[in-house]
């Protein structure tokens, strides 16, 4: 099962969820109607129709009851969903989370940051925003968000205090698997929908407390509360059904990712002894997000949002003796000694041959080997990511952690290598003197970077860029767009890099756009594919015959009986590519898979994928929300 299938399943589950929800709503409306009829009949004295039977069908009452109920449920669901459209940080802040800054001086927070950054680079996603629940002593964590742009990973104070680096890595790997499987979007939707049903019970409780003689409200309240509670019960059931099966999957993916079943198993064993309860009253709403059960263990197994802990541990460690590991605060100093990692920005470190130590041979990855890798990073990718981060010059990582430095870093990554063009680009940046001079300072260091370090560096910078204010972000956007425009059509990679930055940041600053139409077939997208393939073909080769050949190799992958695909060498116009990528992003997962296969074939036209070609392909896949892990020499 590949990335695209898993995405497809996540979508199907979302649709299934809507069906469950509709069924629950119909049931609730009928139940409320039945209650209302009984109530009315008893208040009015037994009403009878002409035949002497009690009146059970009262159309007016039914319309009234169903309208009010539907209104309450839908408006509160919509309200919750719109509130959650703020992304994962809404959930984290609701539970009392505090953001962790990239430059934190706290050693355990640094440990968490490093683990998360390595995983993000290894899997090709952006670095999620980190939150800490400082007052929760249980060991737990969750990931939330709609897309790669607004992801959040939140851990409890207990997890940070009691888990070693390996165990933490296991837990974070589990959360990343949720991210890559598209579980988080599903989880947010689930939260919104169940809230609607929950609201009924809340209103019931409020009405129950009203006082007054001949006041019918408490009775109605009791009714609503009872029925709402039944609804909540079913809501929980839906939540458990959707969430439990995914936990095993995430555990398995985490092990594949870290190559270390002990890390995750030990973390779970520590959960067994310390508990994973979240004390915040809002935990119920978000129970299905957590790494381990966040609520008091339910008596009924099938009501729990998570599989039993013992079962999960046995799955990872079949020889487990059934004993949990007692928790004690982990000493970060000991761990830091055992695992030396350069932290302080070290200006003296020579930027130069960045990967000299492991000098990889020219990559020769068959394009067919690329697609299965999407969304399925392995332990080798993780090692590679750690290596890349360690070898990026300290001045650059330091810049990436700070909002202003990160902005300057992105500018310097986008600047043209051509001297004359670069001067005009600098002119554009002069609005803010400080940033301009910072950019000037970083540019020579950035020049020494190998192209495979650029995407990871951008990935690191995104976190700090989220700290810009709205006005600063607007300025930043204008600036990078004018820098790109001055680059002209010479640098496809810089253009795609810019697109990634904006795509990952935009959800944080602007409300999500209206849902665009979806494409389930490749046919309406063929012109866009033609633009993309032409651009890729032109970027990879110079001779017209080679361009033609590269284009055709890609085009062969697409089902095109009417020969709509035409090579268009003038298509390398950035505006056209921009529009094409935006439309392609609205395609269903399976369609994206075909498009990426075609891109890979075009890029690999000369038999090998060179390093810069590989990075271009990864960047394009990223704009389509398909994270490709870094290419490694086989």
């Amino acid at each position, binding site marked *: 099962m590949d990335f695209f299938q898993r995405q497809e399943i996540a979508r199907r589950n979302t649709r299934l969820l809507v069906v469950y929800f509709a069924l629950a709503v119909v049931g609730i409306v009928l139940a409320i109607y039945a209650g209302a009829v009984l109530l009315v009949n008893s208040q009015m004295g037994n009403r009878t129709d002409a035949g002497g039977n009690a009146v059970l069908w009262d159309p007016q009452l039914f319309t009234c009851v169903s309208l009010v109920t539907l209104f309450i449920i839908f408006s509160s669901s919509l309200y919750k969903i719109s509130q959650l459209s703020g992304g994962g940080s809404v959930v984290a802040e609701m539970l009392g989370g505090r953001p962790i800054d990239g430059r934190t001086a706290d050693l355990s927070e640094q440990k968490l940051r490093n683990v998360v950054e390595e995983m993000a680079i290894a899997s090709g996603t952006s670095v999620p925003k980190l939150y800490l629940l400082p007052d929760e002593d249980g060991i737990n964590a969750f990931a939330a968000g709609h897309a790669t742009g607004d992801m959040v990973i939140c851990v409890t104070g207990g997890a940070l205090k009691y888990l070693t680096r390996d165990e933490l890595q296991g837990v974070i790997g589990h959360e990343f698997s949720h991210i890559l499987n598209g579980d988080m979007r599903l989880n947010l939707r689930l939260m919104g929908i169940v809230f609607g049903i929950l609201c009924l019970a809340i209103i019931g409780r409020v009405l129950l407390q009203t006082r007054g003689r001949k006041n019918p409200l408490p009775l109605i309240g009791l009714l609503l509360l009872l029925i709402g509670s039944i609804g909540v019960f079913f809501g929980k059931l839906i939540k458990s059904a959707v969430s439990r099966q995914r936990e095993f999957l995430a555990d398995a993916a985490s092990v594949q990712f870290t190559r270390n079943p002990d890390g995750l198993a030990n973390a779970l064993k520590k959960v067994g002894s310390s508990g994973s309860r979240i004390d915040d009253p809002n935990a119920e709403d978000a129970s299905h997000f957590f790494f381990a059960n966040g609520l008091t263990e339910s008596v009924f197994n099938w009501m729990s949002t998570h599989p039993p802990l013992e079962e999960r541990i046995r799955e990872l460690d079949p020889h487990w003796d059934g004993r949990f590991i007692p928790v004690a605060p982990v000493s970060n100093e000991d761990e830091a000694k055992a695992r030396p990692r350069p932290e302080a920005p070290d200006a003296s470190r020579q930027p130069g041959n960045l990967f000299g130590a492991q000098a990889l041979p020219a990559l020769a990855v068959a394009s067919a080997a690329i697609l299965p890798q999407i969304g399925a990073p392995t332990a080798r990718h993780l090692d590679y990511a750690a290596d890349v981060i360690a070898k990026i010059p300290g001045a650059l990582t330091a810049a990436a952690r700070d*909002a202003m430095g990160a902005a300057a870093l992105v500018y310097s990554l986008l600047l043209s290598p051509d001297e004359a063009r670069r001067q005009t680009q600098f002119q554009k940046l002069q609005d803010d003197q400080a940033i301009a001079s910072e950019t000037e300072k970083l540019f020579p260091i950035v020049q020494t970077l190998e192209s495979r370090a650029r995407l990871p560096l951008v990935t690191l910078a995104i976190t700090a860029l989220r700290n810009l204010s709205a006005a600063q972000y607007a300025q930043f956007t204008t600036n990078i767009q004018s820098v790109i425009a001055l680059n002209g059509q010479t640098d496809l990679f810089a253009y795609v890099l810019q697109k990634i930055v904006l795509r990952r940041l935009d959800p944080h600053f602007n409300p999500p756009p209206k849902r665009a139409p979806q494409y389930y077939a490749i046919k309406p997208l063929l012109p866009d594919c033609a633009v993309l393939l032409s651009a890729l073909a032109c970027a990879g080769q110079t001779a017209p015959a080679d361009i033609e050949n590269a284009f055709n190799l890609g085009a062969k992958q697409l089902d095109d009986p009417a020969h709509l695909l035409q090579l268009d060498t003038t298509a390398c116009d950035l505006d056209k590519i921009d529009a094409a990528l935006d439309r392609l992003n609205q395609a269903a997962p399976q369609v994206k898979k075909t498009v990426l296969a075609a891109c890979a074939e075009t890029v690999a036209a000369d038999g090998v994928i060179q390093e810069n070609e590989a990075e271009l392909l990864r960047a394009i896949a990223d704009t389509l929300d398909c994270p490709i892990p870094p290419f490694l020499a086989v």
Partner: protein
Amino acid sequence: MNTILMNTILIVLGIIGVGALGVIVYVIGAYNNLVSLRNRFKNAYAQIDVQLKRRYDLIPNLVETAKGYLQHERGTLDEVVAARNNASTANSKAAQNPGDADAMKQVTGAEAALTGSLGRLFAVVEAYPNLKANEEMIRLMEELTSTENKVAFARQAYNDSVMLYNTSRETFPSNLIANSFNFTAAELFIVEKPEEKQAVKVSFT
């Protein structure tokens, strides 16, 4: 007759219910919005805090380096150290309660004093060519300048988000919610004198 009465009661109840629900949803939404705006400017202050702390860490090193050369300028050096300590205390108070009017005024004043005394120190340094050429001194001053730039940038972000919060706090109808749930006004972080808006700049020509 009874049925008509029943229906009227039900319809009226329905309308009241729907109206009440609308109000409740609005109140919750406006409250959440205010909370998230407040979190945003508090986080923005945390960004300033990181850079200011970096600055406070750099100053003792700077003084230590300069000490050897500036035997006759003890006064200037002591002044810088005192101003740095003041600013550091004021900042940790402000960091605990960002936006609080008193704390912000204190930190603004202390920062202005620190910038002023640093400016005087740099003017003195100009007169000592050996110190000016000292590599450690060059590095520290360069880093101080870059940190000040970053402080200015983070301060701009903070002020932007405070403005957003204050506007939402004061405009109708969200001001009703702000008043009943005690969302107090937040203070901007403004550098007081125009000449101090300039980050400390030293030329080594």
